[in-house]
């Protein structure tokens, strides 16, 4: 069942406050989808005993650093992998502590979906709002509000609905798209992989079923073509003496041979002669494919330039205003000089170019 060559990949992140049951949920997903191996489970059992935990502590599966295990906290994002017959998944298990926000953002930046956990007893708290804000800032396509520990509130539909309506307002204010709500118990597995008998009033999908069907990077190939040039391929061999290709990863759009293109920032124009994927020529390529593009004219193009289709140019300006998220402990100082790494937001809805 694990052997298909043509599955889709979904990247998701889990966020929530310290004791909301994040690691337990991941442990449950891995365990119920049979993705924990015997030697891993054995190692976690031994470590749990050594740390004096009464039950197996599934958090030890992802808290892989010595300092994390000592303190029982997550410092940096850990990546975990599992597959069902329908999809492959990459989980970014991110830290809940506010001082490790830069690590949380690192894990969330590539996510197609964010699971935000809420403790049913406490409802929506400051940290829920903070993580929702980050999800909105990173324009994560799907948000799942998982109301956890439903067993501790008697699987009450009223409590679930209360939390849901409160969050609906937050989601609207933050402009979150595709928000889903699920009542779960990560510890006992209710509505995680298997449908729960304790919530007959809940008609939606289980968490895993939702993860298997959420849209992934829907339509980035339909946005305007943005191809940042990463590297120029120029073989020093007689056989490929005149070969010159511009390598990069399509940030958005779909490009074909014969397309009229404009090179920015010089505004030079040309047409696509060939699209190469190593030794295989392609008629077209789409985001997020890595390819090498050859043009019909000999033009000056180097790393940092961008190839776009001539019929859909981005706007260019010497002045831009943008929101800066500061992740360093030392505060930004006005008037100091900073380096901006100039590239493309690969999965953002509206790719744009940073200028120095």
């Amino acid at each position, binding site marked *: *069942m*694990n*052997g298909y*060559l*043509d*599955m*889709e*990949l979904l990247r998701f992140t889990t966020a929530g406050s310290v004791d909301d049951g994040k690691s337990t949920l991941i442990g449950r997903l891995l365990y119920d989808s049979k993705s924990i*191996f*015997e*030697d*891993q489970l054995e*190692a976690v059992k*031994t470590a749990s005993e050594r740390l004096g935990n009464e039950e197996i502590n599934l958090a030890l*599966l*992802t*808290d*892989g*650093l*010595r*300092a994390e*295990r000592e303190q029982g906290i997550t*410092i*940096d*994002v*850990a*990546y*975990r*992998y599992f*597959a069902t017959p329908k999809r492959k998944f*990459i989980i970014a298990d991110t830290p809940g502590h506010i001082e490790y926000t*830069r*690590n949380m953002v*690192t894990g969330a*930046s*590539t996510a197609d979906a964010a699971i935000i956990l809420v403790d049913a007893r406490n409802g929506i708290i400051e940290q829920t709002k903070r993580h929702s804000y980050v999800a909105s800032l990173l324009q994560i396509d799907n948000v799942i509000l998982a109301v956890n520990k439903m067993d501790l509130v008697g699987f009450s539909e009223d409590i679930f609905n209360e939390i849901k309506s409160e969050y609906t307002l937050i989601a609207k204010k933050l402009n979150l798209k595709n928000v889903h709500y699920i009542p779960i118990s990560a510890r006992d597995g209710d509505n995680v992989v298997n449908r729960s008998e304790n919530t007959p009033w809940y008609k939606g999908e289980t968490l895993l079923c939702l993860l298997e069907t959420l849209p992934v*990077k829907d*339509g980035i*190939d339909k946005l305007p073509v943005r191809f940042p040039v990463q*590297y120029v*391929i*120029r*073989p*020093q*061999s007689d056989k*490929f003496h005149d*070969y010159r290709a511009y*390598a990069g*990863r399509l940030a958005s759009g*779909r490009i074909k041979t014969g397309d009229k293109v404009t090179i920015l920032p010089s505004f030079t124009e040309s047409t696509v002669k060939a699209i190469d*994927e*190593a030794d295989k020529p392609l008629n077209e390529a*789409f985001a*997020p*494919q*890595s390819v090498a593009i050859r043009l019909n004219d000999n033009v000056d193009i180097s790393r940092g330039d961008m190839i776009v289709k001539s019929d859909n140019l981005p706007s260019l300006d010497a002045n831009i205003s943008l929101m800066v998220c500061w*992740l360093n402990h030392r505060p930004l100082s006005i008037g100091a000089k900073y380096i901006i*790494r100039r590239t493309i937001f*690969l999965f*953002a809805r509206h790719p744009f170019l940073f200028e120095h």
Partner: protein
Amino acid sequence: MSSKLTHLKELESESIYVLREVAAQFEKPVLLFSGGKDSIVMAYLAYKAFYPAAIPFPFLHIDTGHNFEETIAYRDELIKKLGVKLIVGSVQESIDNGRVVEETGVNASRNKLQTVTLLDALAEHKFDAALGGARRDEEKARAKERFFSHRDEFGQWDPKNQRPELWNIFNGRKQLGEHFRIFPLSNWTEMDIWQYILQENIELPSLYYTHEREVFERDGIWLAYYPFMQLKPDEVIMRKRIRCRTIGDITCTGVTISEAHSLEDIINEIAASRVTERGGRSDDKRSEAAMEDRKKAGYF
């Protein structure tokens, strides 16, 4: 109709992007080649990333002196085919020069000693980026790695203070004498690697397929027998049909009893397996944080 990449295509695109980013951002990168399936896939992706130009960096093999001869033969053949330069860092030389002291006893292994040889080789050639085939799904400390992982002037990793790494923005800025470890295969799983080898029809060392060999059992793990290995009194050499699930230093790489003679067989075997591939690596079992400790010191 919107088009989607398959998971293998998406992983391939991501890795090729990382390899090209390394060639663009660093002055003197090197690809760490072990002869195992992951570094073979990494070499194949590097070939694809720069085709029809040659791979713009040399390969570095840290040779413990305890390698399977099939690994060395495969390595030399591949180097010739790719037309890249091979540098060999020899652990035996590090021992002879007194840089490291050989472990003794029945569990002696040169695995840990490799770190010194590796760091010496990086310093000698002034490499500023070393590409490794490590995957995050292999091990819990590796699950914490960035794609671009900073190392200080002593080659050390500081896992508590890693840089932010957002989207596909990789930050390779560093001080003189520092370097980066780069992991293009971060997001691949063992299954992805095998599926990709099947899809692309990549040739592998024969060790990965079933063959008969002299082996013995230690702590529940089957090890290949070589004359330089010390046996405990109750350990018996037997002939069995085995294959390697991972390839590393002979002294610490467990082998699998297996009849798998094709890639399809191997994929079925792994899909049904209930232990991880590093379950047979005694180097990880020395302590709970064995990998983290080795990585902090500058290991692969």
